[in-house]
């Protein structure tokens, strides 16, 4: 085996880019689930964000506005889910799945005239002197802004859930909505806000695909990333920093296996290709085996709440 062609700084840089879409979607879904709502529509919201962001960026020439548009588009879509599950009390699993179907179709419709177009370039971090530090600069300090936004979101969600009153209320709603309601908290409102936040994050993740990682629009381009994000939330046992680890682990193995192939490392391709999924499953099993693992799911997750009951 010849590892001389592996450049750790480049690998880390690629890993962060590959992991960012799922990380963004996962951190949003994590907040939604901590509020006790299971939204399986992440894939649909991501792809809607991908095309909304792409369309706005192409028409305005501003990637930043593109990301704003993506967040807004997916937020609106997620409000549809909120309307169904929080106000009409529809089943969350069914509503989430149909949200994915709807999002895929809607994005395809909006995106019809955007095939083959090129989005404006996203702004990249470039601090003279610092971004050029050997290794460290290349690996961490030459990314586009969304990579840092995703990291800031993780830190923000963590701090919110752990240290603030708002985070405590959100968790209370997710753990026991009846008790939270009895204490006078507006369960439905809080959940709708959480769902909207999850939608906006998924939209950002989708737009990251269409504006930075690929960068172009094609039908069905998320290709299952939303489902990976859902798995990572469980993988993380609903803890923000673990979601970061999960997303980077998944992204890292994905990038590493492609590099292994490109470098001609003599490991069967099938093993390499399935490694990200196998390792995700393994970690899930290990976490579930521990009492604090899957048991850490918010107690009211997926259950319907009706104030009048």
């Amino acid at each position: 085996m010849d590892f001389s062609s592996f450049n750790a700084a480049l690998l880390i840089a690629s890993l962060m880019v590959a992991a960012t879409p799922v990380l963004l979607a996962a951190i949003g879904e994590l907040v939604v689930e901590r509020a006790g709502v299971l939204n399986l529509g992440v894939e649909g919201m991501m792809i809607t964000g991908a095309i909304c962001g792409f369309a706005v960026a192409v028409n305005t020439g501003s990637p930043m506005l593109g990301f704003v548009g993506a967040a807004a588009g997916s937020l609106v879509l997620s409000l549809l889910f909120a309307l169904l599950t929080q106000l009409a009390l529809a089943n969350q699993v069914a509503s989430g799945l149909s949200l994915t179907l709807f999002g895929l179709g809607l994005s395809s419709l909006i995106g019809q005239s955007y095939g083959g177009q090129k989005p404006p370039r996203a702004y990249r971090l470039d601090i003279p002197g610092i971004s050029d530090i050997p290794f460290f600069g290349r690996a961490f300090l030459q990314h586009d802004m969304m990579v840092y936004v995703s990291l800031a979101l993780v830190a923000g969600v963590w701090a919110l859930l752990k240290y603030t009153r708002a985070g405590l209320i959100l968790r209370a709603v997710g753990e026991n909505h009846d008790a939270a309601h009895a204490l006078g908290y507006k369960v439905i409102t809080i959940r709708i806000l959480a769902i909207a936040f999850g939608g906006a994050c998924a939209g950002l993740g989708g737009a990251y695909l269409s504006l930075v990682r690929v960068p172009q629009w094609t039908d069905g381009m998320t290709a299952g990333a939303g489902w990976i994000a859902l798995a990572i939330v469980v993988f993380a046992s609903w803890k923000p920093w673990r979601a970061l680890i999960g997303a980077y682990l998944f992204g890292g193995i994905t990038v590493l296996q492609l590099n292994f192939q490109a470098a001609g490392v003599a490991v069967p391709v099938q093993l390499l290709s399935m490694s990200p999924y196998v390792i995700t499953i393994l970690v899930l099993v290990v976490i579930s085996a521990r009492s604090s693992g899957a048991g850490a799911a918010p107690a009211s997750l997926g259950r319907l709440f009706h104030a009048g009951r």
Partner: protein
Amino acid sequence: MKRRTLLAGVTTALGLGLAVGPALAQDKPKIGFVYVGPVNDGGWSQHHHEAAMAMKAHFGDAVEVVEQASVPEGADAERVLTQMALGGADLIFTTSFGYMEPTIDVAKKFPKVKFEHATGYKTAPNVGVYSARFYEGRAIEGFLAGHMTKSNKIGYIGSFPIPEVIRGINSSFIHAQKVNPDVEISVIWISTWFDPAKEADATQALLDQGVDVVLAHTDSTAPLAVLKEKGGLGFGQAADMYEYAPEPRISSIIDEWAPYYIKRVQAVIDGTWESDNTWDGIGAGMVGIGEITGPVPDDVKAEAMKMKDDIASGAYHPFTGPLNKQDGSPWLAEGEVADDGTLAGMNFYVQGITGSIPN
């Protein structure tokens, strides 16, 4: 994935509705097309779709065209084909390698419906196959890649390890090596025809490994989008992808299906359709070479065009000996030309390519 299920469900409904009265619509032939990706993928599926539309424009109201996009290879394909056949289709084009078994299976159940399967090798009385000699185009791309690489590392993004893709890798490498004996080729298999994110990641991984010219054998324009952003050269695949010219796209392989579609539909109209095995290349016009652009020097350009002409006229065959297999065992002697049988089932690398083919 779910959208496909939904669409398939809609098709079922339509199929059932039409199955009640298939005899009513016997006046004009109904031609079906099944695609593996969306019709705006910018590459393979879009090009088949455009050829289908060109065929439709040619015949006008004389034919009816039904299409189904984003059909996964495997059991779903069988369901979609059955529905199309029940829906009264007279001729169905199945446009991806993985539709081979489903096509053969469904054709058995509907002996009166005619099928045309792209890039496969299994035929039946009502199943014909058609493919293009993409490896002829790959020879020219490999030649250009060998000239243009500065790092002496070229990359190839493979979908599935099927003969069509392996031929492309071999042909590219042979001709890159001819003009640049130091060249190495890195192959990445991504196990899908269409997944822009994966194609982009694979391109990035190749760049990270020092590759500076990337050949893609997948359906989207994602590799070119990444090359545009990060630097490096590439080629249009299946479609011209001229929107990425003059750089990073320096040339392309263009699939020209429309004339074939028109010919075969005409045969159905005339009642002369018979199962065939068409494998045409540059000479017959089924493989087009896109304009050579970008930083390619004029003499290299001229040499590439000469190679194209020689291949078209039959004066040159991309697989001409002396060639050895990867393990060093002789394959073709000096001046010997590969036969179609070996090419159609090609499952080995030629000498000089490192790495192994997944099986």
